[in-house]
């Protein structure tokens, strides 16, 4: 039974071991072995607890005291760092939170009966698999990446031991979050992810990194404050301290508005929804593996994980409207802002915020269909987005730029990387790949729940999503001259990591009906205490599979096509002024000019600053109004 703790303790120990390793080859062995073991362990645990599930109560006081001790130590650490950098707001937030949680812990928590500290159901298994597989693969990828990183950036001190320590502690904390049922435990792991992300973002210790890391810290501490307050309210007023009791309570009609709003705020800040989205954008200064880890499979997924867990509770009250509105607005505006960006990582950041917005909106609706769509979105997004981050990282190291404009003709420059990116991008928005299936289900769920405004937001948002992904795709497939090829320097680790990601992106599309039947629906049936079946009908799944098959035949078709077809190759049309080939043309002065084809960014129309101001104001207003409505309803 306690074997489940392996998931939490093993990465932690690996991390500690890596903290003391400065030798590259030893580190490589440790990370590869640990990643392999973690993947195997998460698969074995999913198989082991697939049927039975698990409800485990440890009843060990020392664990709680240990957590308190660690929390206090971390609080002291945070305060010390903040004082060093002369930032005072985080200190205040840390003190308030620590006080609340310790006060509650010592004064009252003993009187609340805990039935199960750890609960494993099918949804936890999904999250375990995502964290275990994707997270471990990212750690493997990081080996070579960080070596190159310090090779390119001599100004940054090599503290890779700390970096890998943080990556593995992060995984451990993430496993902690998805396993815990006891809210105090969850809070403990929640705070650890906050601190780890703070340290990871500030890894380079450059001014901008420090500034952004504090931004992330403040926003996440604010969310943590919401979490702490929710725990206190639930403990005192409702007398529960367990996550899995919430849906049943909500269905029995007990007023849960205030804790729901507070937990929603915690979830929204963690999943970088407006007005908290700033931290995720700032986090892009960190080395790419940490971005990949934070923004695809872990950190932000913890936020939406919590929201989906409490989603059945949200469906019954105005907290649901809060979550839905914030998610919807974020989805739409973030996808518009992504249009204006040419920095690959920035586009990925906005797309992450935007997709999380969709998941959050699904949680906010809180119906059977919408949660179904939300969980599927989590899975597809984790895989495809992680693949995208890793590809962008590799491209950056190969060409020295991660600007999408520089990826013009990547299919010639770095064919393998272009292929990875095409798979990733297709996975992000294109029929018949994953994200689109879930978007489809989400659309259906939104209509069925009569939330017409969210439907409108979704249709406009998905149109702009289509725009920024396709123009990126267009850049990749532009065909240049053969001699512009760049030698790719892919190592074994990178191949394994990205290859597995690409494979998963495609495979998951084929097996999603099975995921639906065996993971999501059983979970939802217990949550809603009734059986509702599949959201997408069998006939449509068949057609989707047919489409997928057709799309997968494309590379094969291409080879056949190229061998059969004999085109006469001519220069491209430039009004007849080509200079012998497609690269140069004669300008009005009779001189050769390089042809440069740029995508449209339309900054004038989708101005980032203006849109984010609009978004921050509206979402803040929604949160404040509903928060006070909740307070007013109680008082």
């Amino acid at each position, binding site marked *: 039974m306690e074997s489940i703790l392996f998931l939490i303790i093993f990465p932690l120990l690996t991390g500690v071991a890596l903290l003391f390793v400065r030798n590259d080859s030893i580190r490589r062995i440790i990370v590869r072995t640990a990643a392999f073991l973690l993947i195997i362990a998460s698969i074995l645990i999913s198989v082991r607890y697939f049927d039975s599930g698990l409800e485990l109560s440890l009843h060990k006081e020392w664990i709680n005291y240990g957590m308190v001790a660690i929390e206090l130590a971390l609080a002291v650490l945070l305060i010390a760092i903040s004082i060093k950098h002369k930032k005072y707001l985080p200190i205040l937030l840390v003190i308030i939170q620590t006080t609340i949680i310790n006060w509650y812990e010592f004064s009252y928590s003993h009187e609340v009966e805990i039935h199960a500290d750890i609960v494993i159901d099918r949804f936890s298994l999904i999250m375990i698999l995502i964290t275990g597989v994707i997270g471990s693969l990212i750690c493997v990828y990081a080996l070579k990446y960080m070596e190159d990183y310090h090779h390119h950036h001599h100004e940054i001190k090599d503290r890779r031991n700390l970096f890998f320590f943080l990556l593995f502690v992060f995984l451990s904390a993430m496993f902690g979050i998805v396993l815990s049922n006891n809210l105090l435990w969850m809070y403990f792991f929640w705070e650890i992810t906050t601190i780890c992300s703070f340290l990871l973002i500030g890894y380079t210790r450059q001014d901008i990194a420090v500034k952004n890391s504090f931004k992330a810290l403040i926003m996440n501490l604010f969310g943590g404050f919401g979490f702490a307050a929710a725990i206190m309210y639930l403990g005192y007023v409702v007398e529960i301290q367990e996550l899995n009791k919430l849906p049943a309570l909500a269905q029995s009609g007990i007023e849960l508005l205030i804790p729901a709003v507070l937990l929603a705020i915690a979830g929204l800040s963690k999943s970088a929804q407006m007005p908290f989205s700033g931290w995720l954008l700032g986090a892009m200064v960190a080395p790419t593996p940490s971005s990949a880890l934070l923004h695809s499979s872990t950190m932000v997924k913890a936020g939406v994980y919590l929201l989906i867990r409490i989603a059945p509770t949200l469906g019954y009250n105005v907290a649901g409207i809060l979550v839905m509105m914030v998610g919807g607005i974020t989805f739409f505006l973030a996808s518009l802002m992504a249009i204006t960006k040419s920095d690959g990582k920035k586009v990925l950041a906005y797309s992450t915020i935007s997709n999380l917005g969709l998941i959050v909106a699904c949680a906010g609706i809180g119906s059977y269909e919408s949660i179904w769509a939300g969980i599927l979105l989590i899975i597809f997004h984790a895989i495809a987005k992680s693949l995208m981050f890793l590809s962008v990282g590799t491209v950056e190291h190969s060409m020295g730029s991660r600007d999408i404009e520089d990826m013009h003709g990547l299919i010639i420059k770095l064919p393998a990387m272009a292929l990875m990116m095409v798979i990733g991008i297709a996975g992000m928005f294109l029929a018949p790949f994953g994200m689109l299936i879930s978007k489809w289900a989400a659309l259906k769920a939104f209509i069925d729940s009569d939330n017409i405004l969210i439907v409108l937001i979704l249709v406009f948002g998905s149109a702009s999503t289509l725009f920024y992904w396709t123009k990126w795709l267009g850049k990749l497939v532009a065909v240049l001259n053969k001699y512009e090829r760049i030698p790719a320097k892919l190592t074994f680790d990178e191949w394994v990591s990205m290859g597995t990601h690409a494979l998963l992106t495609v495979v998951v599309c084929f097996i999603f009906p099975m995921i639906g039947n065996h993971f999501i629906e059983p979970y939802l049936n217990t949550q809603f205490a009734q059986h509702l079946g599949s959201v997408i009908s069998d006939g449509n799944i068949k057609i989707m599979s047919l489409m997928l098959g057709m799309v997968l035949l494309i590379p094969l078709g291409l*080879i056949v096509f*190229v061998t059969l077809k004999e085109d006469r190759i*001519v*220069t491209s*049309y430039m009004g*007849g002024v*080509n200079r012998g080939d497609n690269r140069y043309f*004669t300008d009005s002065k009779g001189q050769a000019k390089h042809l440069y084809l740029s995508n449209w960014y339309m900054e004038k129309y989708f101005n980032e600053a203006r849109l984010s101001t609009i978004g921050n104001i509206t979402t803040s207003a929604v949160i404040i109004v509903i928060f006070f409505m909740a307070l007013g309803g109680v008082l």
Partner: protein
Amino acid sequence: MSFLKKSPWIIHYDGTSCNGCDIEVLACLTPLYDVERFGVVNTGNPKHADILLITGSVNEQNKDVVWQIFNQMPNPKVVVAVGICATSGGIFAECYNVMGGVDKIIPVDVYVPGCAARPESIIDGVVKAVEILEEKRAAMTKKRKMAKVRRVSGPVSLSNMF
């Protein structure tokens, strides 16, 4: 049955013309003459065109352009030189920068004289061009058939893709 005759698409290139012939070329598209009756479309894109219609003479500046446009057209294709400047350089033939008629650069199939060439004669020229086009197509098809018989399949490699 060939459909080339029924849908000759044109690209019109203006070399060093006084614009007299250009106006007459455009006049062919107006309701009075309406060459679209015969399926003629002014495409403005060499890659879509069958007939290259050139007005004005060729000079040092535009000789490459003429050559490239001609080269970018798919076979079968014909060239029609419209107006006296395009056929021989006309009154500009002696200018220091003028090279002469279009046939100095690319092979011309039909010469349409006149200064400016009248729409009727331009249409007449195009009709002649269509006949030559048809001949060229027949020759091309024959050649292609011969080539197919003789072709030896070469090695296939992925690097041919780009």
